[in-house]
């Protein structure tokens, strides 16, 4: 469908200031309004409107035929979404927390990502699998996972991570309209971090480009999800010390837009990659590897990775010991400046 497709009402969110989770809700609402094949399924998404209220009011508005509370079974949710997508619908499935996404992997790896390829285009699988991810909300075990790297490795998938209300809205609408399967990971720690007004020109944001949130010349800070907030904070701290940092929100982890990142590092010669996920074999590894492999000559200091540890997220009492923060990012940035001095 064309990006300029008519929206219900001529300015549905005029003036409204929205949180990230509000924006998710609004994107679902608008896509359901403009395309009758868009349906929602998941646990507690109907009457309850989702445990984070991401689907609130949609059951009332579009009925239980299009907003389906499923039995408690993640494999089923993913597999059913695959079957719906192969038979003409655009399902948006919710996995209540990323910690419960693993049961969906067989359907993502062995089916969703391969249907088009397997049938040489006869069938396709335009589904979106949404899941809140990341830590920092003092939740019980399994409610703080960041295992996006496992998904980013899967050929045929798209993996998208918004980090602002506008990007949540624009990327989710594009994800729903995308003809291929998209895993859409929502940083729940910043679901309600701040309210912003949306702008029409960003109703549909591209799924294969990074977003440069702040320009700078001395060091490139690359991140996604909730840590975008910490990274922007770090950029401010660095500015106070006279260091000009460029901040890139990767947003789409697969496919990966290395051009934007490489172009920035070409200029700055220094790069710090920030993610909450466990360090080893995280998405940061691929980015760091490509920078070195393709940008080696322009690098003035080794790439730094500021990440979670290779441990499970500790129970919430010690969670803060695990989560990278602005101070860690600043320190890493300064190391690259010393190294490259």
């Amino acid at each position, binding site marked *: 469908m064309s990006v300029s497709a008519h929206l219900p009402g001529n300015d549905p969110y005029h003036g409204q200031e929205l949180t990230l989770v509000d924006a998710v809700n609004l994107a679902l609402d608008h896509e359901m309004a403009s395309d009758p094949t868009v*349906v929602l399924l998941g646990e507690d998404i109907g009457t309850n409107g989702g445990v984070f209220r991401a689907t609130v009011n949609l059951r009332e508005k579009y009925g239980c*035929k*299009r907003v*389906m509370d*499923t*039995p408690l*079974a993640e*494999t*089923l949710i*993913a*597999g*059913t*979404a*695959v*079957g*719906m*997508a*192969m*038979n*003409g*619908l655009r*399902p948006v499935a919710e996995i209540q927390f990323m910690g419960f996404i693993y049961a969906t992997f*067989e*359907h993502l790896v*062995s*089916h969703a990502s391969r249907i*088009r*390829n*397997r*049938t*040489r*285009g*006869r*069938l*396709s699988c335009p589904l979106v699998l949404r899941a809140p991810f990341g830590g920092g909300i003092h939740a019980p075990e399994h409610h703080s996972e960041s295992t996006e790297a496992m998904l980013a490795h899967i*050929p*045929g998938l798209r993996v998208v991570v918004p980090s602002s209300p506008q990007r949540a809205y624009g990327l989710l609408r594009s994800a729903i309209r*995308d*003809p*291929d399967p998209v895993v859409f990971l929502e940083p729940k720690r910043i679901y309600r971090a701040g309210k912003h007004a949306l702008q029409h020109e960003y109703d549909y944001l591209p799924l*294969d480009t990074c977003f440069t949130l702040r320009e700078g010349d001395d060091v490139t800070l690359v991140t996604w999800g909730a840590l975008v907030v910490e990274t922007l904070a770090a950029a401010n701290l660095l500015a106070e010390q006279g260091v000009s940092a460029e901040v890139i929100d990767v947003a789409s982890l697969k*496919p*990966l*837009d*290395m*051009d934007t990142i490489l172009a920035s590092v070409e200029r700055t010669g220094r790069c710090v990659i920030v993610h909450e996920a466990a360090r080893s074999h995280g998405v940061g590894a691929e980015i760091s590897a490509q920078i070195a492999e393709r940008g080696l000559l322009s690098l003035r200091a080794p790439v730094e990775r500021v990440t979670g540890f290779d441990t499970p997220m500790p129970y919430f009492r010690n969670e803060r010991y695990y989560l990278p923060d602005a101070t860690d990012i600043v320190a890493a940035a300064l190391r690259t400046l010393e190294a490259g001095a």
Partner: protein
Amino acid sequence: MNMQTPIKVPFTRYLSADGTLHTNLPDWAADASHLRKILQQLYHDMVLARVLDTRSVALQRTGRMGTYASCLGQEAIGAAIGLAMQPDDLFVPYYRDLAAQLRRGVRPVETLLYWGGDERGNAYRDCAGDFPNCVPIATQCCHAAGAATAFRVRGERHVVVCTLGDGATSRGDFLEALNLAGVWQLPLVFVICNNQWAISVPRALQSAAPTLAQKAVGAGLPGEQVDGNDALAVYDRVSAAIQRARDGKGATLIEALTYRLGDHTTADDANRYRPQAELKAAWEREPLGRLRSFLVARGDWGEWQEKSLYREVEQQVATAVEEYLATPPEPASAMFDSLYAELPAALQAQRDAAIARAARLDGGAAS
């Protein structure tokens, strides 16, 4: 209370192993000419599947095809499903459904290409909507539930038929989908092809349930057994279940009792684990001979029909094999060209590299 909750599971058989009448035919069979058409059609489809299946095994044995999973002995189930379904219904197969797929419009050359290691074998030209064979056991059951939900959402009165093996009934994918089919009353028919073995694991080691049909009890929908080597019985029960689903009355689980007359696949040797005597006995209940005897006894089939049917079918299969063997492989670029609707820029370089490697491997033949 310390014993299994007792339960009665319906079982249907019309034709005995020797092809004589086991019990009165269903009412719809009263119309003799209608019945004849049905029976002849079923027999035709079973023979076509048998001949193509035999030829496929031969191709593998002679190194001209890959590992192949034979449907030998299960032709009645496939033929019955194929005939009972309407064109706009949707078939979600496992991988021993040759007879059903051919009736649904899948071309023999496509099944050959599929088993020959070529994705184009899934690009059914004349069967736009059906799902391709599914290798990860039981996962297709969830897809079938989703496809049935899509019909429901669009308010279409089409039905999904999904097959699976006896081993597949042990997997969560099937059990979760079955439960959903019950609670959402989906227009869906599950047909378990219980051929008594899951590779080397006998039916008895899959479940302590005396029947697999009774897995429906925990999902709140009807379950029944049928003689899977009696094409007429399978046709009757699958048709009834499809009608029920089309009328909005919900899903049905059918356990079709049959036997895997071949090895699990051409990569398997059943002699390692399966008693010869059991196999020999199973051949006595084989579906083609049974239906032929019944047709002949009714005067609906004779020598010359048999001959001409085989002549026609052999010819059809031979043509398909020729086309299959004459089909050049896809270019290396094909592995990228239907990965996404549009190839992401990030993958362009890899696509070029694949083409270059292929050119090297094929001695300059670029693609």
